[in-house]
């Protein structure tokens, strides 16, 4: 009986010793790491509050890419206005810009504007025919352009005006529907579009965007010549 008790005690003692040894070894391993981490923080945080604030400000002032998506309203000019006099409330625009030099950005702009007008009773002349009735007129403009934009003020400024210029191509499709007939013409033309706008910070990375663009195109579908239009954009710009 005594012999079995002493064996059990000996086993318990060995287990306790093993556990304690493991704990000591673990502490020995962790302690230098904790020490190293503490030293790292001490060494990598030598800035004063003022210096840190200045660094943050400097980082914030650095230009970053701008991504804009917006709702675009347009009004035709010249022949396009003769074809559809009503303003277009259907459109969007996407611009992707990267900082090139200081506050000058370069990138791509892509958009769509859909013009639509239903006339009352009008006479539509065809080659050897004429139709009087309700005319449905449509024009779809799809511009794709390279965009250069200079943004004034600093990035952290609450309001930042900008000017820019777009050069690219515009595809314009016009469709006239009358009775059961469809008359469709399309044309691809050169696009030159100066723009001016303003960005207003909503938060650190998000800005509201309001801009005006005059889209001069050489696209001339059918017997309509040089369809151009001006656009007003209400958008949202992300500067991640």
């Amino acid at each position: 009986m005594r012999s079995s008790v002493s064996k059990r005690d000996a086993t318990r003692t060995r287990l306790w010793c093993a556990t304690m040894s493991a704990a000591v070894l673990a502490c020995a391993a962790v302690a230098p790491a904790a020490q190293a981490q503490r030293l790292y923080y001490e060494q990598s945080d030598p800035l004063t509050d003022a210096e840190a604030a200045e660094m943050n400000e400097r980082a914030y002032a650095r230009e970053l890419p701008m991504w804009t998506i917006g709702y675009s309203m347009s009004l035709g000019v010249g022949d396009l206005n003769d074809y559809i006099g009503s303003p277009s409330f259907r459109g969007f625009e996407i611009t992707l810009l990267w900082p090139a030099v200081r506050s000058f950005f370069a990138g791509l702009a892509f958009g769509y504007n859909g013009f639509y007008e239903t006339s009352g009773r009008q006479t539509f002349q065809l080659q050897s025919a004429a139709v009087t009735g309700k005319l449905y007129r449509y024009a779809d403009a799809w511009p794709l352009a390279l965009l250069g934009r200079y943004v004034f003020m600093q990035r952290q400024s609450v309001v930042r005006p900008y000017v820019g210029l777009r050069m690219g191509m515009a595809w314009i499709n016009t469709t006239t529907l009358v009775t059961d007939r469809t008359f469709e013409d399309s044309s691809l033309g050169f696009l030159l579009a100066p723009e001016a706008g303003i960005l207003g910070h909503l938060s650190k990375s998000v800005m509201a965007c309001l801009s005006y663009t005059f889209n001069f195109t050489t696209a001339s579908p059918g017997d309509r010549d040089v369809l151009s239009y001006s656009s007003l954009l209400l958008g949202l710009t992300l500067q991640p």
Partner: protein
Amino acid sequence: MDLPLTFREYRLGASVFVAYGALSLTSCIAYPDSSERLDDDIVFTGHAAEAEFHDYLTFAIDPTLHVASVQSDNSVKTSEADEDSSERVTDHIANALSARGFNRVLTQEDPDLAVTVTGISGLEVGSVSGGYWGGYYSDYWGFPGWGYYYPYDVYYTYQTGSLIVDIADLRAARTEKPAPDPYYAPDDIRPRGLAVVWTMIGYKAYVDDSKSARVDSATQAIDQAFDQSPYLTRK
């Protein structure tokens, strides 16, 4: 604390971007269906580009307003409008042509032009295709043995309620017989029938239940057709 704020902004921005994209896609304009477009008071006129209207001197007009009724099995039954309606409509056309310098004569007096008037009636919904409709007159009125054709695009389907006025050139046809069916004489280049040098289709111009209102809308459509055809004159 900047990181969670920026993340929220990204999430907000991304959501707005996606919403904007979806909105933009739905803003694409859908065209109205052709049946919706035809449900209107439309007046179509067509003419032969080579026709020199100032060269024609006289015309005769079929005094009957013919009615083609679309049946429930899509067949076409022909009839005639009442005498008063026929007279009012045909006289209106004759007066309009006289005002443009053409002289009205009888068919026996070898007119240069012949005028026919037809209303499409019958079912509320239905149509008569150009080809089918062309078979309505086995012979052109006033010119037995000849059918007629349109030397320009007329691929309209005539809806019920339409009024059709055709002016055919008889002068050219007097000098020669029409060519037989192209199946039997493919090399015969003579015309297969009389050329309809002017046509008008007034949609919904012959649709009213009341006889008087129907004649009024028919005459209004005829006036519009002449207004949009300034070339149809001897002057």
